């Protein structure tokens, strides 16, 4: 299919794709622009060139403090992802390389636990957390997010592991590798792209989880989702401040996503592509 691609065609698709992409990106772009406007400027109607004031960021920072919730978000999302991986890798190994008739069912059951409406179990959870002294602790939130994302992690890893030929693991076994060595020296390094992609996706999901992270935190463990909850509708003009807070809340994950998009995209198939 390597017939000549005419420049015309290429230009046409370039223009079309950029137009669509910018349209999709526009809400985010406009939020960033608005965050650099003054409040009165922000509601003056459509304008793409702000006055580049940073007062909103200063205000947001002095009002709420950005660093602590940011660190909480980082610790919780990365921590929960790592723990989930730690639990999921062996499980996915077992499912992929020693499947039984029930493997598929177990996998599907795991996914179905994600369908439980969170709010329906809020009070029980709150009580459990209170009694285990996990309320408003990073550990508590990490545990919750680990459990929430575990099914997806298992599933993703399972699909990657299944693509690894069993013969290689058998070779390792013949070579005298113990199970531990087999997983650490052979399986995991081979699945690195898949594991990286799983990790990224789950950090994103954990970062953006907004139900439990607000409900089970107060001051110490409150992540950025709670940070943004204090800006959703304050009194007076707030468009620019809200934009600044929004920008701050999404910027870290957005930047991380941009830089790692190749890894993320490469593995984002859920086994749908052979």
């Amino acid at each position, binding site marked *: 299919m390597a017939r000549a691609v005419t420049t015309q065609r290429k230009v046409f698709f370039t223009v079309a794709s950029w137009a669509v992409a910018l349209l999709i990106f526009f809400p985010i772009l406009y939020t960033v622009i608005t965050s650099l406007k003054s409040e009165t400027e922000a509601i003056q109607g459509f304008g793409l060139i702000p006055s580049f004031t940073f007062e909103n960021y200063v205000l947001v920072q002095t009002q709420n403090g950005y660093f602590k919730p940011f660190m909480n978000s980082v610790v919780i999302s990365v921590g929960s992802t790592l723990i989930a991986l730690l639990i999921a890798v062996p499980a996915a190994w077992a499912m992929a390389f020693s499947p039984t008739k029930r493997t598929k069912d177990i996998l599907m059951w795991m996914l179905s636990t994600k369908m439980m409406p969170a709010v329906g179990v809020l009070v029980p959870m709150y009580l459990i957390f209170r009694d285990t002294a996990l309320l408003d602790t990073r550990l508590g939130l990490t545990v919750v997010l680990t459990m929430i994302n575990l099914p997806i992690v298992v599933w993703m890893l399972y699909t990657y592991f299944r693509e690894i030929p069993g013969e290689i693991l058998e*070779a390792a076994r013949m070579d005298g*590798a*113990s199970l531990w060595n087999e997983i650490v020296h052979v399986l995991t390094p*081979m699945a690195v792209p898949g594991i990286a992609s799983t990790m990224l996706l789950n950090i994103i999901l954990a970062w953006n989880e907004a139900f439990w992270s607000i409900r089970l935190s107060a001051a110490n463990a409150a992540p950025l989702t709670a940070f943004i909850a204090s800006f959703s509708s304050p009194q007076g003009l707030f468009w620019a401040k809200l934009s600044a807070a929004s920008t701050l809340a999404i910027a870290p994950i957005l930047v991380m996503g941009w830089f790692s998009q190749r890894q993320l995209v490469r593995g984002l198939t859920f086994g749908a592509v052979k």
Partner: protein
Amino acid sequence: MGMIELKGVHKSFGGTNVIPKVDLAIQNGEFVVFVGPSGCGKSTLLRLIAGLEDTTSGHITIDGRDVTGEPPAKRGLAMVFQSYALYPHMSVYKNIAFPLKMAGIDPAEIDRKVKAAAATLNLTSYLERRPGQLSGGQRQRVAIGRAIVRQPKAFLFDEPLSNLDASLRGTMRLEISELHHQLKTTMIYVTHDQVEAMTMADKIVVLNAGNIEQVGSPMELYRNPRNLFVAGFIGSPRMNLISGKAAEEHGATTIGIRPEHVSISKTGGTWSGTVGVAEHLGSDTFLHVHTDGVGTITVRTGGEIGLDHGAKVWLTPQPDKLHRFDKEGLAIA
């Protein structure tokens, strides 16, 4: 140091009986080839020996020691897989060193052994490459390197050449044979390519549906196939098998004659027919002759025969090379 015995080994997967019951003794230093059609249980048998599958019943001994329940790592065997099963994230050096590292051998010793193995296999200049940067033949050599470095009691090969192209297959075939001459370690080699079986084996084990049909040296099987299955399987192109009247004339249900044992003439002979496809290989020509009465017979002739599609010919089998089989398909002595 490499004597393997299977005693009443039986294997079934769930309900299906893949290996009904096999007894087999492999001597130290022998090159044994398992051949048989696809799905006949060759790989399964090899994996039972390796310990990658459990026997359902029966025993496997290595050098007299019963290893039936032991995990693969303890059996002291090395295996080369069809897909090479190299570790893609490790360099050639690390691939070869892996089994030694797992055995906890010290780094200096590992280095010495890896370099020696690499030298044997002409891999010295590739040691830093990843498997992905190697050609098929080189990968296969790395896989073998990984096997020999441990100095195992026996090598197990599962169709190691089937992913290579024809000419490379020829070369690698030679290399493995040379290696066997050099190391004199027991080798068990699975293939469904009978050319490989014929050229490499000291002893061929012909399997069919999990049963051993015949065990013997290549020429034994070629000359005296015990039954129809072996007769049809060994030899390339296949033996011509004829049943019906022509067979009855020889007091058999089926007779067999190899293509190289049929002579061809334009003037007269036992069977008449017309030439179908003629395969010119340069040195030889294989004629597929559609005969009147005994079906299509393949004939091997010299390279320079002047017969073409549609020509009328007569065929005569060499009487002393005829194989006769009874109703059960067993050879009649």
